[in-house]
């Protein structure tokens, strides 16, 4: 019983209510993904959050086509205005349209979140898989490395790295791309530990299972055992962790930009907008509230989706 409690109530549906659903789902074939999707749909807040996220992604990708206002059109006559028809989210201190800037900034924030997650998951899976499939000193050493990284003070080190390498990367790859690469690599490089621990734990239990033994008995080499038998089965918790990592990376990027050490002023990521807005909190609160609200909404939606996925992908749950 212990440990099998779902993270949310909606995953546990009374039998009577579930009966028609089960009847409807009693199709001849049930795929693993289909099962997970069926469970995920039960978590209403997660579905709503997924919709919100899809909408936001669509808005930041194609919003500039629907709202073709340049992000740097300065108009001093209309500076620090609240929301109006001409500027739905108001304007900043230079009279730049906030909706356009928010749409552009969202693209950066989401891209940083997603790219950092990919790096964190790749590194984490690699380290976790190597640690989990070796029985020698390699495992001990990698576990020590994971623990070491977990006890590093992340934000100070992030700031330190960005301060040290900012100038040279910008020279190398251009202002915007250079900063993007640096931020993504540094955030991803400090957040792979939870994935690595998860993958290692999964590997430790999976490699003793009968199906792995059967594959080994059939003569499968080590790489095939890992790639085809163990890794796919270890991916459930990793997907959940990856979702949460996107949210964490978005917060990390906003924090860096908010401290003035992220993207340069002419690249309005959400954190950067908030950094600029904090000095005008008393006369133009809408400026800070929209930017902060966007970060908050995105992060909360991702966390809810993570909760829903946790229930949907947990194979111990039988619905």
């Amino acid at each position, binding site marked *: 019983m212990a440990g099998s409690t779902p993270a949310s109530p909606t995953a546990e549906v009374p039998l009577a209510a579930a009966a028609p659903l089960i009847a409807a789902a009693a199709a001849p074939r049930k795929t693993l993904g289909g099962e997970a999707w069926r469970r995920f749909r039960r978590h209403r807040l997660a579905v709503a959050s997924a919709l919100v996220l899809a909408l936001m992604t669509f808005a930041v990708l194609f919003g500039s086509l629907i709202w073709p206002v340049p992000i740097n059109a300065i108009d001093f006559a209309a500076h620090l205005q609240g929301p109006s028809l001409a500027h739905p989210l108001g304007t900043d201190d230079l009279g730049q349209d906030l909706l356009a800037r928010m749409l552009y900034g969202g693209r950066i924030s989401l891209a940083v979140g997603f790219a950092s997650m990919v790096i964190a998951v790749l590194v984490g899976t690699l380290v976790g898989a190597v640690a989990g499939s070796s029985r020698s000193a390699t495992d001990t050493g990698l576990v020590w490395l994971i623990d070491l990284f977990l006890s590093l003070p992340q934000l100070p080190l992030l700031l330190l790295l960005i301060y040290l390498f900012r100038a040279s990367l910008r020279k190398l790859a251009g202002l915007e791309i250079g900063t993007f690469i640096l931020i993504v690599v540094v955030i991803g490089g400090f957040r792979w530990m939870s994935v690595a621990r998860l993958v290692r734990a999964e590997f430790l239990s999976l490699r003793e299972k009968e199906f792995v033994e059967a594959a080994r008995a059939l003569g499968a080499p080590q790489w095939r055992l890992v790639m085809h038998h163990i890794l796919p089965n270890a991916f459930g918790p990793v997907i959940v962790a990856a979702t949460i990592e996107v949210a964490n990376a978005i917060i990390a990027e906003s924090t860096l930009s908010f401290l*003035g050490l992220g993207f340069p002023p002419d690249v309005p990521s959400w954190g950067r907008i908030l950094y600029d807005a904090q000095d005008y909190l008393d006369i133009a609160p809408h400026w800070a509230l929209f930017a902060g609200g966007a970060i908050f909404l995105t992060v909360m939606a991702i966390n809810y989706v993570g909760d829903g996925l946790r229930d949907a992908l947990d194979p111990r749950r039988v619905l």
Partner: protein
Amino acid sequence: MFNYLVRRLFIALPSLLGISLILFTVLALAPGDPFSELANDPSIPPAVAAALRHKFGLDDPIYLRYFHWLVAMLHGDWGYSFASRVDVSTLILQRLPTTLYVLGASQILALCVALPVGVYAGVRPYSLGDQIASTLALIGFSIPTFFTGLVLILIFSIWLDWLPFVYRTDISATGFAWYWAYIKEAIMPVAVLGLFQGAVWTRFVRASVLDVVRLDYVTTARAKGLAEHTVVLKHITRNAMIPVVTLVALSMPIVFGGAVVTEQIFRVPGIGSLLISAILNNDTPVIMGVTFIFSCLVIVFNLIADLLYGWLDPRISYR
């Protein structure tokens, strides 16, 4: 007990060495060195610059430089701040009490929120109270600390004008008024940090109570006719705390990150804001010192967690 502590310290030592190695590597890999400005200065002949480099050991092999640096750090010789012309150790010692005061108060607040709410929600899973608590906790840890800070400033300083939003150490009042002003200016930073951590820990506590609450020994305790509060406090909570202690210790690096942000928002003169100003001023010795202090604090908290762990779980003996 004492032996246990010593043994834990010996385990912590390699971590500290590892952290110092990472810090040093980062600095050594970074482009540019402290003498790059000398090289660009036409009034200093190249021979003098080279002699200076040699004198300060910049041409030594890297392992020797690391060794020298480590010995100097252990002797308390942390260098000399470029910006404020004071010893780094003096500067940090001046700032550290404020940080510890704000951090400590916020962590106490977080525990005061997380323990009762988390236990309440975990004991009555899926009740209305649990759903409200879980939703609030998820919202609480989805709002980044810098946004909460700005919103609190907007509400309590700008709209209501109840609390000051700049943390001052030179309060002119005396006696009771001094204490009141001192407490009043700390309310918002402590609340921002404490409520965020409280939300994170509420989720830990709830999940961990949920795992314990259905175990057989809890049913036995109830069947014996023990009072409900005895069951909850002595049987459930104490056992549920064991994983929570680990998670709390693991989240310490994030707490320090939050402290940096909070100090920056409220202009708290602690080591977090010292770090930011040092980074903006290119004040390398201070950056290194503060990052190292943060690392040491993380390790100290891990040690405390180990001790608590032994107290909570008698199976881990102090041998």
